[in-house]
């Protein structure tokens, strides 16, 4: 089972076309291994993206440098997955 230790999901506010273009450019950078849960599509619609720990610093820095507001929607994806697994085990019991 693939682990998602330290993966965060960021919710990013998209105020204008410039923000949109920045996110689209990040989306195309495969080495960052970003998983867009809600992809960048239009202004006014927030983007949710799962970011592996190795890319967190780069992404957050890039957002801050471009005055893009974001919040951490999920602090640690693996923690929620562990809880989900535990609940499923409990249910099976």
């Amino acid at each position, binding site marked *: *089972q*693939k682990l*998602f230790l330290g993966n965060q*999901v960021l*919710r990013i506010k998209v105020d204008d076309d410039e923000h949109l273009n920045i996110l689209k450019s990040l989306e195309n950078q*495969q080495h960052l291994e970003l*998983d*867009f*849960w*809600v*992809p960048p*599509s*239009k202004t006014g*619609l927030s983007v*949710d993206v*799962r970011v592996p720990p190795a890319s967190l610093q780069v992404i957050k820095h890039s957002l801050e440098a471009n005055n893009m507001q974001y919040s951490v*929607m*999920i602090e640690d*994806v693996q923690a*929620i*997955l562990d*809880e*989900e697994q535990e*609940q*499923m085990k409990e*249910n099976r019991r």
Partner: protein
Amino acid sequence: LERSAKSFNLGAYHTLDTIYNWMDTLKAQYPNLVSKIQIGWTYEHREMYVLKFSTGGLNRPAIWIDSGIHAREWVSTATAIWTANKIATLYGNDASLTTLLNRMDIFLLITANPDGYVFTHTSNRMWRKTRSRNSASSCIGVDPNRNWDAGFAGPGASTNPCSDSYHGPYAHSEVEVKNIVDFVKSHGNIKSFISIHSYSQLLLYPYGYKCTNTKDYKELDSIGKSAASALQSLYGTKYQVGSICAAIYQASGGSIDWTYDNGIKYSFAFELRDTGRYGFLLPANQIIPTAEETWLGLKSIMEYVYDHPY
């Protein structure tokens, strides 16, 4: 095996095997209403089953509901299970649903992407696509909601096999999609087609592959708004209603665009709720509230379809 559909925990996430076993118990418990139809095999050779709710008749006008075409959207699958149980238990007890089922059939495909669903349970909880292999790439899978023959390979679908929105080598290349297409075509009398996704609280109608309104735009918008209002009445969950292109983004090769272009006027897609900001990881204790409110939206659409034959 579950001994009774009543002992099944509808407020939990389940594996594919458990879901398939539960289908048998539901069928056994409501033999005069529920049947299980195999519509084909998946890429990894798993059965694809659709539950048919019917009180008889031959090739009656029908409503199709599918869920889980994107593997990691677990709450949509869980909602469909709850919905199947609801339909079975309400028949004979709810005037509106009973009337509907006396003239129409309901088809419910609980897991539209069984291989992907199994993969989310065994290997990668974040998996979205099918599990088919690409001859030209080491990356696996196609986005089954970009694989339909509706503006195939147009804007909003990726040509990159490693992308989560890869459209596949050709339209209906994915056997899971082809199975549904063949079933819908051979049935020929499906009047409403509803796909259930998650999350982000949207109720969508065509088009997604182009940003122009359908000729039925006004009617679909009005049906969608009524359904969203019914849904919201239970827990206050707010839905945005609109065409795929207007409400989210241009996305080609989607299921409801294909069904609409193939004559199924009442084609809709739900993006179920995540009011708690969990995304695809909605905790199991939110399954039942999500399903309950979704039912009100589904019922609103189904009643409209019943009242407006075409």
